[in-house]
C-alpha cells in the first residue's frame, strides 16, 4: 500500500508541474465558468416569470448537455499519459522492473487520476457559494450531486486508465478513452429512444444522464453507486492485467 501511495504522489506531482495540467484546468474553468454564467444569466432573465427560472446550480450539475459533452474530452486528456505516457517516455519498463507489482503501479495511477478528477471539480464550490449568496442552496442536494460526480469519476477514470494501458501512445490512449466513454454515453441515450418501454430502465441504468439526474435532485440510488464501483473495478482490473501481460512480454 505504501508503494501505491508513493506512485500516486509521484504521479500527482508530475502532473501538476507539467504545463498540460494547467492548460486542462484553465480550459475547464473557462468552460464550466461559461456554463454557469449562462445558466445564471438565464435565471436572472426569468425573474418574475411564473415559477421563476431554473436553479442554475441544479442545471449546472447534469441538467444540460454542457455537463456531459466536455467530459468526453477532458477525461481522456487527463488519463492518456498515465500509462501510455510512461510507455512513450520509456519509463514504464524501468518502473515495472522495480520492486513494485503491477497492481501497485496501476492502483497508484488510478488514485492519482481520481485526484485530478476531484481537482477539476473543486473550483465549482465557488459556484455553490455564489448561488447561496443570491438564493437558497439545499446542501443535501449539493452533497448528493458531488457524490454523483465522484461516482462518475470513478468509472470514467478507470476506463481512461485501461485505455492508457492498452495504447502505445498518448494520442491513441485519448482516442480509446474517448471511444470507451463515448460508447457508454451513447448507450445511455437509449433511455430517450426507448422511453416508455421496458428497456428504458435498463438504458437509464447504464446512462450517465440517468445517473446524474437522480444525484442532482438529491436522490442517491444504490444502483448507480454499485454500477460506478463495479465498472471502475473492471476498468482497473483489466488495466492491471494489461500491465502484467506487458511485463511478462518484456
Amino acid at each position, binding site marked *: 500500500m505504501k508503494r501505491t501511495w508513493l506512485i500516486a504522489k509521484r504521479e500527482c506531482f508530475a502532473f*501538476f*508541474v507539467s*504545463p498540460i*495540467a*494547467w*492548460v486542462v*484546468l*484553465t*480550459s475547464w*474553468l*473557462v468552460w464550466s*465558468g461559461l456554463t454557469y*454564467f449562462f445558466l*445564471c444569466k438565464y*435565471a*436572472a432573465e426569468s*425573474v418574475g416569470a*411564473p*415559477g*421563476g*427560472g*431554473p*436553479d*442554475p446550480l*441544479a442545471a449546472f450539475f447534469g441538467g444540460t448537455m454542457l455537463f456531459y459533452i466536455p467530459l468526453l474530452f477532458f477525461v481522456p486528456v487527463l488519463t492518456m499519459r498515465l500509462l501510455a505516457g510512461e510507455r512513450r517516455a520509456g519509463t514504464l519498463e524501468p518502473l515495472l522492473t522495480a520492486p513494485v507489482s503491477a497492481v501497485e503501479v496501476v492502483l497508484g495511477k488510478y488514485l492519482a487520476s481520481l485526484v485530478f478528477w476531484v481537482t477539476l471539480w473543486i*473550483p465549482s464550490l*465557488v459556484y455553490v457559494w*455564489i*448561488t447561496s449568496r*443570491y*438564493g*437558497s442552496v*439545499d*446542501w*443535501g*442536494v449539493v*452533497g*448528493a450531486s458531488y457524490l454523483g460526480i465522484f461516482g462518475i469519476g470513478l468509472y470514467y477514470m478507470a476506463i481512461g486508465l485501461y485505455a492508457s494501458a492498452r495504447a502505445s501512445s498518448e494520442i491513441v490512449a485519448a482516442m480509446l478513452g474517448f471511444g470507451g466513454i463515448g460508447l457508454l454515453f451513447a448507450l445511455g441515450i437509449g433511455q430517450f429512444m426507448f422511453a*416508455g418501454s421496458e428497456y428504458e*430502465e435498463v438504458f437509464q*441504468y447504464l446512462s450517465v444522464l440517468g445517473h446524474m*439526474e*437522480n444525484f*442532482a*435532485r*438529491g*436522490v*442517491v*440510488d*444504490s*444502483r448507480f453507486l*454499485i*454500477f460506478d464501483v*463495479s465498472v471502475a*473495478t*473492471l476498468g482497473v*482490473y483489466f488495466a492491471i*492485467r494489461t500491465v502484467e*501481460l506487458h511485463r*511478462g512480454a518484456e
Partner: protein
Amino acid sequence: MTPQTSKRVWGAGTGLLLVALVGLVNYLAFRHYDRWDFTTARLFTLSSRTEEVLTRLDRDVDVYVFLSRFDPMQRNVDELLERYKTKTRKLTVRFVDPNTEPDEFRVLAQRFGVLSGEFEGNVVADLAAVVVSGEKRWKITNDDLASVDFDSIEVDDSGASADQLVKMEQAFTGAILQVVRGRPTKICASKGHGEWTIDAGGERSLSTLKDELERDNIVFESIDLIGGAAIPEGCDALFVIGPTNAFSERETATIQAFLAAGHGVLMTLDPILEREAFQPLGLESILGPVGITAGSDVIIEINDTRRLDGELLGKFLVSDYGDHPTTRAFTRLSAPTVVRFPRSIRTTEGGDAKSILRTSPESWAETSIAQLGGTEPPSLDAEDTRGPVSIGAAAEIDGRAGARKGRLVVVGTSQWLAPAWLMQPQLVNFELASAWIGWLTERDELVSIPPRRVSREPVTMTADDVFWLFFRLVVFMPAAALFVGLAMWRSRRN
C-alpha cells in the same frame, strides 16, 4: 501449452469470470435497490403515512399511468411510483403512452372509460392515471396531480414544483386507500347547536378539512342530534365542532351511548361568554367521568415568540403536545399549531385522560370576564391558572361488554380548524386533525404525518450581478489558474 499461453488463458478466464460477476452484481442491484433522500426538505422521501399504507397493502394494486412521455409530469410520477414500489411488492405500475402504444391504450381506455384528444399534435388522455384493485378503481385526473396556485410555486432541483410532488403523493396514496379499503370512513358532524358546518363558505366551515380528508377515503355527513335523535349506523366518528348552544340531557346521552359502543368523538368547545358568564354546553357530563374538565376561562398568551398578532386574545402558536400516540411525532418535530381564543381542557390528576395540547409557561387561564372585557389588559391573579395550561385532552372510555373502548378527543377551541390555517405548510393544524381522526377511527396510517409542502428561495440576480459574475468566473478564475501554471513552469525551467 506454454507457461505463457497458460497464463494468458488463465488470465482471460479470470477476466471473463469477473465480467460475469460484475454483470450478476449489477443485475441484482438493478432489481433490489434502495434510495436515499439527501434533500433537506425530504422532498423525495415518502411520508410516513404513505409508507404505512404501502407496507400494510395486503392485496394487489395496479396503477395505469396514461401520461405521454412528452408530459413533464410523467418523469415525476415515474420517480414517485418507483419509490412506492420499493415499499411493497403488491403494487404494479404500467405506463401506457397514448402516442407510442395506441393499441394498448385503446383497450385500457375502453376498460376504464378514459377519453382522449389531441393537443399540439400529441394524443392526450383525460385522465392521468387509474388505480385498480379487484373490482374497485379510482381515477386520478391531471388536476389532481398539478398544483394550481401559480403564485406559490417553488421549483425544486428536478424542475418540478415542490407542491406538485406533494400533491402527486397525496393523489396516489389517496387513490390506493380508496381501492383497498372496504368502505369510506364516515365522520358524522353534528348540527343544530350552532356547530361549524361541512358546507363550503363562511368562517365556520369544515369544507377544507372535508375536501382534504376525501383523499384518505374519509367522507363527512351532517347529522342532527336535536332531541336526542340517534346517531346513524355507519358513522365511524362523531364531530361536535364549536357548538354555541347547550346540548340537552337526551342529546348528551346519545353521544355517551355512541362512545360506549366503541366509537370516537372529537369535540371542540370554544368558551361561550354570554350575559357576563361562561355558558355551559351540557357536555360536561361526558367529560367529567373520563377525567376531563372544560374550564370556564380563556387562555392569555404573553410570550411574544408565540403570539402572531399584537392582541392578547389573538392567534398564538402551541407546540407542546404532551405524550400521546397521536402527538409524539409533532413533539419530535417541535411543529407549531395555531390556535385562537381557547379555553382550558384539563385532565384530572391520576386519571386516564392525557393532555395533548398545552400552552407555554408564560400563558395563563384567565377566569375573570370583567378583565377579559375590560379596557385594561388582563393580569394574572390568584384565581387564574398559570401556564402551561392544557387546552386539549384525549381519553379512552370503557364501553359496553364486548365493544372496544370508545375514544374521545376534546380541544378548547375550534379556530385551529379554520381553512386558512389548515393548509399552511409551516403549521401542523391539518396533520393534527388527521392524526386525531386516525386515532378516533382506528386508522393508524392517518396518525403518521401526511405529505408536507415546502418552500425554497429561488436565485435572483440583477444584470449587474451577472456582469460581474462573467468577469469573476470566466476571466479571473481561469486567468489565476493560468498564472499559477506559468509560474510553476518557469520555476521548473529555472
